[in-house]
């Protein structure tokens, strides 16, 4: 019984990581339809932000807290720049956007290699996060996993509130639902796009900060997570945050359960098969926005 509970907790914490890395994408891909392969490198930028800040702020706890907003801003600005320079010109060509941003991600990875070196680097975790909470003898919850879970849930909450209750959020949803109508109603769609992109990319930076708690960071860390993040949004459905949330936790749990009974590599394949099977049932993902476009 405790085995199951502890696997479930592992699953939920894998899910929380998935959710954090996918949350930004559920804005840029899910809401705007932009396939940004450099999203993984924004995550990397967030992680390196912690690394750099720890050179200045020696206290690991403080540096982590400061890193959260700084990483959000760094990754967000990178996103805005990318949107302004390239993606803006490619809105009508989603598949080409994918390839172009892949090129950008290659360049960003190499930049990281040139600046920080090719080998992975380690950041320091604050002492308060290295411990565990012992619930029973077999059931031990690690603090950093709990922190990530909290962070993920807070991020979802903040994003939901932003989308629902701020004027920016209303504009964002208006642009997603009907771009032309929003434009003629006087909403500056270009600026809204850029802001959406800022927030989505900024969330990638926050995810990067969280990832530093789980292991070393390096130039290729983005490539390792980007596919999972996209799968979450694909299975969750375009235009709905809650789809991504549910799918992230479901996939995390699935992976942890399959992993427990087999191996990590089989679990990865299992997740892939599960998603293809799931798309048989719901080809547009868990939740769908209906449109009547022929495309």
């Amino acid at each position: 019984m405790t085995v199951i509970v502890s696997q479930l907790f592992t699953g939920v914490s894998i899910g929380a990581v998935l959710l954090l890395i996918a949350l930004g994408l559920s804005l840029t891909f899910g809401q705007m339809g932009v396939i940004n392969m450099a999203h993984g490198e924004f995550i990397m930028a967030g992680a390196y932000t912690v690394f750099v800040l720890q050179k200045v702020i020696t206290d690991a706890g403080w540096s982590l807290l400061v890193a959260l907003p700084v990483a959000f801003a760094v990754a967000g600005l990178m996103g805005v720049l990318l949107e302004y320079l390239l993606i803006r010109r490619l809105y009508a060509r989603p598949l080409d956007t994918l390839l172009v941003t892949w090129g950008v991600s290659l360049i960003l990875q190499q930049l990281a290699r040139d600046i920080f070196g090719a080998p992975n680097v380690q950041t320091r975790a604050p002492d308060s996060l290295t411990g565990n909470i012992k619930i029973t003898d077999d059931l031990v919850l690690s603090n950093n996993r709990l922190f990530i879970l909290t962070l993920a849930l807070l991020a979802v909450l903040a994003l939901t509130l932003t989308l629902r209750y701020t004027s920016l959020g209303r504009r964002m949803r208006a642009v997603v639902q009907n771009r032309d109508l929003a434009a003629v109603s006087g909403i500056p769609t270009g600026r809204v796009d850029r802001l959406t992109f800022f927030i989505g990319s900024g969330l990638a930076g926050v995810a990067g900060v969280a990832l530093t708690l789980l292991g070393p960071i390096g130039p290729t860390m983005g490539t390792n997570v980007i596919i999972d993040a996209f799968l979450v949004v694909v299975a969750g459905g375009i235009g709905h945050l809650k789809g991504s949330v549910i799918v992230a936790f479901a996939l995390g749990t699935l992976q942890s359960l399959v992993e427990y009974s087999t191996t990590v590599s089989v679990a990865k394949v299992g997740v892939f098969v599960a998603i293809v099977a799931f798309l048989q049932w719901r080809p547009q993902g868990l939740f769908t926005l209906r449109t009547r476009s022929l495309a």
Partner: protein
Amino acid sequence: MKTGMRLSWRAGLGFAVGAAVLFAVAPVALSDFRLSLLAKYLCLAMVAVGIGLAWGRGGLLTLGQGVFFGLGGYAMAMHMKLADAGPGEMPDFMQLYGQLDALPWWWRPFANPAFALPATVLLPMLVAFLLGSLVFRRRVRGAYFAILSQALAAAMAILLIGQQGTTGGTNGLTDFQGFFGYDLDDPVNQRMVYFIVAGVLLLLLALCRQLMQSRYGELLVAVRDSEERVRFLGYDPANVKLVAYVTAAGMAGLAGALFVPAVGIINPALIGIVPSIEFVIGVAVGGRASLLGPVLGAVAVAWARTTLSEEFPAAWTYLQGLLFVLVVAFLPGGLASVARLVRRRRRPPPDPAPVSPAPVLTQEVTA
């Protein structure tokens, strides 16, 4: 038709020139080492031919061709390993890891060339057929399809790495001695492999040209541009796409199978996410929708990589990234579109556009 005649005459000439370059000029002009490099590039070009068909003509951005390349490659490599080991023996690396007492059941049929050879092509086609039928029928398309195909590549690479004892793990399968009884260390036999590769590439080009110019090829473009519209004409677009996807998978499988004797290795690093998307860049550079563009683009990119990446690995990565950005964003037709532009410049301009007439209703409808 006159233009049709002239076109196929020109195609014949192009084919002859290509054959002359590959079979007469290259073997004389290049050292053994360079020639075997060229063989490697030509294998990659075979994958590109398939991507040109599926992506350029069919709009199916497949970011997982490494999977099919790998299936073909591993099928061939397993056969060669078993042939090297001799009847009833286990391949050297399995004995080295010493985890297994007997050959795994799924290795066994590959000892027989009558199974292994067709499997290099049919296995990738089967996997493509299964995945393709599932996703195309449910109208999973565009970016969704691209991401799924990429996820498949990731899953396959991870699976191979995880099964160290039976697949060679990260090292993959390598150290082959013979290729159907011929010693692979002998330069003469390496040349033979090159000639086989060159011949197969020409065959695949001919096949692809036939497909592109056939009615199927026109239908494929129609599906790319407006899938729903095609449906209303009574076709099932899923089948149309499936043919292109499965054909491209078969080509990638064949390429992988020939890559193994030509280069001497197959491993997960050749088939994961990164190599899979790298197959695409050559196609984009050469011109995704043209016949020859993908081949020339793939060879050029592979050549540039070999030349640059050893001495200036950083510069190569930047260049590769820039190629993706600049070509795809600003020259989506690739170099083929530049060539077409130049050719058009040289020719006299076409007749001015006729004034649009209203339909003349003198004719009875016979349809």
